[in-house]
């Protein structure tokens, strides 16, 4: 016993000695490296003469950082990592029981989302809830829905679509134009917007049936731009870049959300606030997103859903099994586009204003990035990715304390895209198949086993 203790103690002192030695070396190397770059600085004085400034203080900071960093690395970080690795290897032998939270994640998330608005109302009051429900809740859910819609085309059928925002635009303009010109209500126009978007999905589908991979991506990209340019230039109908404004709001069984006597607030005996309308919109987009998820889950267990996934895996084998790949591709495009159309109609009713500005290529790219980050085909992964990406960019607006550090000119929102890109690179290196890389089988004989992402294909166009 004593023997073991003494060996471990001597190992500890050995480690410290080694760490100290390496720290001294690191300090010496950094001194040698930085002495000319940092320690001495050539400058011009007022008479245009070259002078040499000495900055020994700064140099010593560099050297100390290197030495201390090396010491900590060798003495603490490396042993800790080795221990973790050993612990992990041991843990793998034990059968891992999934935690309750992990198993019921989606149910818990749905319940949490249903109780989200009342909780926010209780915590921050009616006016304070506006930001949390609208900027975070509704905004994220729109992207969740869009990404789930695109997931049908990209994640399941494996058809790379870079112009998904076109269907979002079709849905938004369908509602905006039909409600302003014909005065139809939101509840009638919601399915109409979906059907029109699905129709445009088919129109896109026909020319790209024979294209794959890069070529498919280019044509879908162009299609998205065509829709946007038509919206800009068809000024008699769409009012061009000015956009359509004053779009009618949605009603709840005919109850309007306004200050009138029979409005929602008056009927419920509440003081008038736009927060109630936002909460209504929150539940509306939550219902639409859940509809998307439900339909996707059901479709995956249908022959058509299996045919989509089979198409992603191998198109020629599909044809040899008697699957009509033309209709299979078209239904994938149409179904994905339909959910884009629903989301578009919701977008129009939420903003009350649509313009081509909202449907630029960047939106398509963001939606596609969410699908890829989340893990193609995985609804949970995509929802998490949407929350992280869209919620993350919203949170940047909240970080005003950074101004104290970086000066008053610092606006964190401007770094949005930079952080976005960095986050994507990090996630793709860390988890190349997205947050949830495995695939749930749609049928099983004995037990349901998740399929590792290394077997599934990304599709070829």
């Amino acid at each position, binding site marked *: 016993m004593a023997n073991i203790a003494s060996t471990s103690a001597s190992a500890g002192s050995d480690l410290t000695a080694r760490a100290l030695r390496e720290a001294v070396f690191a300090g010496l190397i950094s001194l040698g490296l930085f002495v000319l770059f940092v320690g001495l600085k050539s400058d011009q004085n007022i008479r245009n003469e070259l002078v040499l400034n000495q900055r020994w203080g700064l140099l010593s900071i560099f050297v100390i950082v290197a030495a201390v960093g090396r010491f900590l690395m060798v003495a603490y970080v490396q042993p800790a990592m080795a221990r973790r690795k050993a612990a992990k290897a041991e843990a793998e032998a034990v059968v891992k029981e999934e935690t309750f939270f992990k198993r019921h994640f989606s149910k818990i998330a749905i319940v949490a989302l249903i109780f989200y608005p009342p909780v926010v109302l209780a915590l921050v009051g009616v006016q304070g809830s506006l930001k949390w429900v609208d900027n975070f809740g509704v905004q994220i859910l729109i992207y969740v829905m869009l990404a789930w819609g695109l997931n049908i085309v990209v994640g399941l059928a494996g058809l790379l679509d870079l112009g998904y925002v076109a269907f979002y635009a079709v849905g938004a303009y369908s509602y905006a134009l039909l409600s302003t010109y014909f005065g139809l209500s939101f509840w009638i126009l919601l399915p109409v917007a979906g059907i029109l978007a699905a129709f445009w999905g088919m129109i896109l589908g026909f020319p790209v049936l024979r294209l794959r991979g890069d070529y498919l991506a280019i044509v879908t990209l162009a299609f998205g731009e065509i829709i946007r340019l038509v919206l800009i230039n068809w000024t008699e109908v769409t009012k061009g870049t000015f956009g359509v404004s004053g779009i009618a709001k949605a009603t709840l069984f005919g109850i309007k959300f306004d200050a009138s006597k029979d409005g929602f607030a008056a009927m419920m005996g509440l003081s008038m606030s736009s927060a109630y309308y936002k909460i209504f919109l929150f539940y509306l987009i939550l219902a639409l997103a859940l509809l998307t998820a439900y339909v996707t889950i059901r479709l995956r267990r249908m*022959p058509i859903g299996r045919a989509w996934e089979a198409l992603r895996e191998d198109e020629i084998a599909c044809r040899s099994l008697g*699957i009509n790949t033309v209709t299979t591709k078209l239904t994938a495009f149409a179904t994905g586009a339909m959910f884009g159309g629903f989301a578009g109609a919701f977008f129009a009713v939420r903003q009350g204003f649509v313009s081509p500005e909202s449907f630029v290529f960047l939106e398509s790219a963001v939606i596609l990035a969410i699908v890829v980050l989340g893990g193609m085909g995985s609804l949970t992964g995509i929802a998490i990715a949407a929350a992280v990406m869209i919620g993350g960019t919203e949170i940047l607006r909240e970080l005003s304390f950074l101004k104290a550090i970086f000066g008053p000119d610092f606006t964190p929102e401007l770094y949005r895209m930079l952080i976005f890109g960095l986050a994507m690179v990090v996630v793709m290196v860390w988890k190349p198949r997205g947050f949830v890389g495995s695939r749930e089988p749609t049928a099983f*004989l004995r037990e349901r086993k998740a399929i590792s992402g290394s077997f599934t294909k990304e599709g070829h166009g």
Partner: protein
Amino acid sequence: MALETTTTTMKKDPILSVEHLSMRFGGLMAINDFSFEAYRGDITALIGPNGAGKTTVFNCITGFYKPTMGMITMKQKSGKEYLLERLPDFEITKQAKVARTFQNIRMFSGLTVLENLLVAQHNKLMQASGYTFLGLLGFPAYKQASKESIELARHWLEKASLVDRADDPAGDLPYGAQRRLEIARAMCTGPELLCLDEPAAGLNPRESLALNELLRSIRGETGTSILLIEHDMSVVMEISDHVVVLEYGQKISDGNPDFVKNDPRVIAAYLGVEDEEVEEVIEEIEEIEGGQGGSKK
């Protein structure tokens, strides 16, 4: 003439007749005026040296190529006839009931073994689910059909001895098992004619024996006729009832395995002998055959 088929096969009822099939790729005549018949209930083998055009014939039959000339008639049990060269590829499986496998295995590697077999029952399930709409609304007809489809899949998994791996991804199976899975998947489409492109390629001797068993039991139980391309002569001579030999896109021999084995043209094609030396080769072969005949049984 040596090309005359033997009288026993003449009486049989053809399931597939290929007449004057020609396929031209630019300046290359891959198949030149090729005709043969595959008989109902038979295992017909299509053999020939590398590059003879066997896979091209298959691709023409299964609609992956449109032949330059010729007619391919599929006659079903019910008496219905389909002209395969006029049907798009997926209709050939769906309506004419001709299923195929591929030389380089084409699995849905990210789907489970079971799902692979369910995808093969697409058309049947599509109808049962009312083209998705009724199934989406939860009509019982789809649930019933879905259960039946899993039972059919289980049946073929048992046949192919893959039932233990049913819930594993297809891409995780070893090579031989993938070959069997591909055959099981083709059988799930409910074909009357099964076309196998080199089913024994890359299999070890034990696996190819198991393959022979599988093919025999497929024919025995379902009455499915089989057309196969094969290089492994132990498989061809063992199980086929009828062999067609192709060289440079033309038929050089057609008949039962014994007849083909002794056909001087076939020997010449495989051993690469000059036309003048064919007679010599025949004599040699006859000697060897005589010697083996004594020791065989």
